[in-house]
């Protein structure tokens, strides 16, 4: 038997998992209050010192919480799976949602009245002082207009803190925070006072020392708490555990770890503290098997079973971390996603296979815990043992959407092409959704923006206009184009215009962070901030990038090919006909709701009512329920209310045009070209940290949300419907099976999309059943990677299960699916995202 099966987790792990599943997420106020008090006290000091003092105050005063049955301790919030607020980045969206965040559709959080009052009080201080306010003041009107029209958004760092980074966990395990402080003191002593940067460097070093001393005390507070609990604990087993926890927290992270258990505790403290310092997302543990293995191998006393339980406990802790976003972003990142990407396998710096025992134990932990975090990745290359890939496929077959699989053979050369050394490139890890970087040497500014390529196409088709307003340059009416060359000239011009403002907007946000929120704790764990005496935000990292990601590539490719084929090759459609049909949305009313699969009329109606209510609420200042009822009953929800008959022929003609995802070179090469136009435009720009822009092609789940901003397209898609996700073909459009679909996707130029590409494939369980299924599954991965695809992830789930989960969510709380660059509980996703997942073609024969 190839398949080995997975063991059952321990009772402790089951209990801890239940705690996460049963948790009601809360917003808590302590951090926001503490950071505000601190900033009031430190007016006038250099900003980096103010940040350090704020971290010090938080570490000194944040409540200490040890949850029942935990072996690895450290909690950001009193309640499990809850969140603190970081008002220094942005806050108004929290304030706006005080009343509604508890009941909103995507990712609700409870905000008790007292918490709201405390937050409201704290927020008063931050008016005009946040990073987002500063970034906003720097941005040009053109950039803001483009954002408002839905061409792109730089929301991630605009609203939140810096994240998307992988720090040097191994270093903390080896030398401890004391070792880091010593390093900083030595660096400080070494600087020549005549160094023109001396003062700035000294402030940075001081701020690091303050932060790390506070961090050590923070861990000691956990030790005290554990002893306190042990003193009153009746159960002798738990008492002994608490005393061991106390010992661990006295040792790490102050000093290096002496055994595997301490290494686990040190890991968790670092992971937690980073997420207290800032609200940044995607604080990614990276190559967990590489830095943990030496401690496991050297630990003569530990049993594999206990080591496994500790790893499982870490997996639980990763799910205890939660972050809230504004309502719209919550839809885009649906599923309480925190994107702590953790990966195993691949090569080491020498180019040799690095798979070890921890790599396999990490997979076992995923099977034990079955929760959305971590975003679990594996690296695959020619030298990856078959056994490892089979095991990964066996895990994927469980249907949780993990692991995501990454191709060393593409990513390493892609990073080398960006100036990363070969050794560093071989050591890459994955951040957030799908973004590769050299760990603890990179400030990648990944997830810098969502860029809607399909929107740029729409604007190109409208001579630079969006919703009737001139947004981009005037590049000619589509009816005036005489050839595809004319189209591409216009498309490139529009792309160039919008990417220019994208770069500007990203750099405004970048500078705002440097000026208002440098992060000393994080910086000291990334090379070469200590050597350079600079925070990460000032360019302290060895590698600096900005990575905005595109989506809508398949829609654009299919649409452009439809124009080429029907208007210029077959000449069965004229530009005038096409323009008229697009302007008329093919005769359909522009409904606010995306398509709902047939057979579920009640939910469809419900959704439309919801959209209608939202529309009315958005327009009216005073709300009259009777009025709403009247307006709803007056609204026509029927999709056929327009005159689809008139354009039906044309739309079906366009819709039946060969599309991306069927291994058809003609259309695939158009999609490749469209994606390249974006990627090559992006890489022209540089960021304030001295690094280059690099494009990615992945959507998180923004393809659904931002689809609402895009009008009808020449591929037959109606206005407001979801766009294709990542580099995947359009939903339901890949009809020739998984090998044809993956061949198409591999034809894109993944090497130039070095900020990551994302390809979702869905298999039904029957297609991967048995040992043969496992072998074929692994072969699909190997073959896609031989064709130089970068990333692939799988949803192995049947449609019936998903539909059933939509109907009876309470019975399917443990159903975890891959959304995009992350996994989430299916039942907490917005209905539209659920529908999108269901509609992605299921490959089976």
């Amino acid at each position, binding site marked *: 038997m190839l398949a080995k099966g997975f063991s059952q987790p321990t009772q402790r792990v089951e209990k801890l998992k239940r705690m996460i599943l049963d948790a009601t997420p809360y917003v808590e106020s302590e951090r926001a209050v503490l950071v505000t008090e601190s900033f009031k006290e430190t007016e006038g000091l250099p900003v980096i010192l103010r940040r350090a003092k704020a971290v010090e105050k938080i570490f000194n005063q944040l409540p200490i919480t040890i949850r029942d049955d935990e072996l690895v301790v450290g909690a950001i919030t009193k309640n499990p799976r809850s969140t603190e607020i970081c008002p220094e980045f942005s806050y108004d969206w929290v304030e706006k949602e005080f009343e509604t965040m508890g009941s909103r559709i995507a990712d609700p959080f409870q905000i008790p009245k007292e918490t709201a009052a405390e937050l409201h009080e704290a927020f008063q201080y931050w008016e005009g002082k946040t990073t987002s306010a500063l970034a906003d003041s720097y941005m040009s009107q053109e950039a803001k207009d483009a954002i408002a029209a839905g061409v792109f958004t730089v929301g991630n760092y605009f609203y939140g803190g810096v994240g998307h980074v992988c720090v040097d966990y191994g270093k903390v395990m080896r030398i401890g925070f004391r070792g880091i402080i010593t390093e900083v003191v030595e660096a400080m002593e070494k600087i020549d006072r005549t160094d023109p940067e001396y003062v700035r460097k000294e402030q940075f070093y001081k701020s690091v020392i303050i932060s790390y001393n506070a961090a050590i005390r923070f861990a000691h507070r956990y030790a005290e708490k554990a002893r306190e609990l042990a003193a009153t604990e009746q159960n002798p087993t738990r008492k002994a555990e608490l005393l061991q926890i106390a010992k661990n927290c006295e040792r790490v992270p102050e000093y290096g770890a002496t055994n595997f258990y301490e290494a686990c505790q040190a890991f968790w403290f670092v992971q937690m503290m980073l997420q207290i310092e800032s609200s940044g997302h995607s604080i990614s543990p990276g190559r967990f098997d590489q830095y943990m293995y030496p401690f496991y191998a050297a630990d003569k006393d530990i049993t594999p079973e206990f080591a496994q339980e500790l790893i499982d406990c870490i997996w639980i802790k990763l799910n205890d971390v939660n972050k809230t976003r504004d309502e719209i972003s919550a839809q885009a990142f649906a599923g309480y996603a925190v994107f702590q990407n953790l990966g195993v396998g691949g090569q080491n710096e020498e180019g040799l296979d690095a798979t070890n025992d921890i790599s396999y134990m990490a997979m076992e932990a995923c099977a034990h815990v079955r929760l959305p975090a971590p975003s679990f990745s594996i690296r695959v290359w020619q030298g990856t043992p078959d056994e490892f890939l089979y095991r990964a496929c066996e895990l994927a077959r469980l249907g949780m959407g993990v692991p995501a699989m990454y191709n060393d053979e593409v990513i390493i050369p892609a990073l080398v092409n960006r100036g990363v050394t070969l050794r560093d490139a071989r050591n890459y890890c994955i951040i957030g959704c799908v973004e590769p970087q050299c760990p603890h040497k990179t400030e990648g500014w990944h997830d810098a923006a969502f860029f809607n390529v399909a929107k740029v196409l729409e604007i190109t088709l409208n001579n630079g206009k969006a919703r009737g307003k001139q947004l981009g340059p005037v590049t000619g009416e589509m009816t005036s184009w005489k050839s595809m060359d004319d189209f591409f000239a216009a498309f490139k011009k529009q792309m160039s215009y919008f990417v220019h403002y994208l770069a500007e907007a990203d750099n405004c946000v970048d500078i705002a962070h440097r000026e208002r929120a440098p992060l000393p704790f994080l910086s000291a764990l990334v090379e070469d901030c200590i050597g350079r005496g600079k925070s990460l935000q000032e360019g302290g990292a060895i590698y600096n990038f900005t990575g905005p990601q595109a989506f809508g590539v398949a829609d654009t490719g299919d649409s452009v090919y439809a124009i080429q084929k029907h208007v210029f090759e077959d000449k069965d459609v004229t530009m005038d006909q096409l323009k008229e049909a697009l302007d008329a949305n093919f005769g359909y009313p522009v409904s606010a709701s995306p398509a709902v699969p047939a057979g579920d009329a009640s939910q469809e109606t419900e959704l439309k009512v919801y959209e209608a209510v939202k529309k009315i609420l958005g327009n009216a200042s005073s709300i009259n329920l009777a009025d709403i009822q009247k307006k709803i009953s007056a609204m026509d929800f029927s999709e056929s209310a327009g005159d689809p008959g008139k354009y039906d022929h044309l739309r079906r003609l366009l819709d039946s045009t060969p599309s991306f995802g069927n291994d058809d070179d003609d259309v695939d090469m158009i999609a490749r070209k469209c994606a390249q136009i974006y990627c090559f435009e992006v890489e022209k720009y540089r960021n304030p940290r001295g690094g280059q822009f690099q494009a990615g092609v992945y959507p998180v789940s923004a393809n659904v949300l931002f689809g609402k901003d895009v009008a009808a397209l020449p591929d037959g898609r109606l206005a407001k419907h979801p766009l294709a996700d990542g580099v995947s073909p359009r939903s339901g459009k890949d009809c020739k099976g998984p090998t044809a679909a993956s061949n198409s996707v591999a034809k894109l130029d993944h090497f130039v999309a070095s900020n990551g590409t994302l390809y979702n494939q869905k298999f039904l369980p029957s297609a991967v059943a048995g040992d043969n299924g496992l072998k*074929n599954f692994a072969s699909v991965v190997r073959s896609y990677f031989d064709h130089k695809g970068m990333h692939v992830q799988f949803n192995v789930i049947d449609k019936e299960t998903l539909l059933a989960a939509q109907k009876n969510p309470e019975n399917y709380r443990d159903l975890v699916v891959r959304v995009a660059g992350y996994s989430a509980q299916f039942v907490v996703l917005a209905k539209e995202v659920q529908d999108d997942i269901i509609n992605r073609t299921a490959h089976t024969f």
Partner: protein
Amino acid sequence: MPSPIDYSATGTVFNMQRYSIHDGPGIRTIVFLKGCPLSCLWCCNPESQNPKPEVMYQASLCIHCGKCIKACKFGAIDPQNTGLVNHTKCVACGECVNVCPAGALTMKGQRLTVEQVIQELKRDEINYRRSGGGITLSGGEPLLQSGFAVELLKACHAKGWHTAIETTAYASAEAIEKVFPFIDLALLDIKSLNNEIHRKVTGVSNEIILKNARRISEMTQTVVRVPTIPGVNASPEGISAICEFVLTLHQVKTVHLLPYHTYGENKYDLLGREYFMDSNVSLSAEEAEQLKKIVEGYGLNCVIGG
């Protein structure tokens, strides 16, 4: 000295299905050749039976533009006909398919050269290599186009691909001798040992089939496949008879039971033909398991579903 490969040889192919994982080892592309001397009542690929290309009409895709009516020179398009195409008049010239903008009319069966087929097969070459897969010829009855089949198989072997064939074994001895030297795995269909039943449900006698089965098993690795049909062979007696026959073949160790399904039913409508099987008849999983036990009782490996 191997004989040169004729890449310009042509055959009538009605489909090439990629990522096939149930018809031979690994990931395979199945090349379906058109034309079959049998007409099994349950056939799930009725479009494969007629050796000539045929026009298929899918009403749900039709946009009623009328282009096909104008294009047809033989008056074979009749909007009053539910199946649109009057197959007695149609000569399958393909004019209507060429003008159909919605893909509602499709030509089942295309004359393709070996070279053209190879170009399509090559697209999954890496998948074959990675999975230990390859090519499977199916039909219809591929041996009916043995001249084309043998050139195609030689070309596949020249590329290093594993070759399999799904066959009824209803073919001339010459065809068998010509084709099987280039087959790595034969998936050999046996429907019934009872000749009376065989004639009734397939339209032909089983004598040639049983004779060829022996020869094929001597020439290449062979697996016997039994489309397991209630009322035909899905009984302990029917399956036992087949197993006893299998034991007389040369080194055949494996029997696949392929439970009857009605997936092909709607295709009969599309072709304007009648479906004679009772669509309510089906084989339950438990019944299939019982038959499997019988096969295993003969010391044979048995796989349900192939």
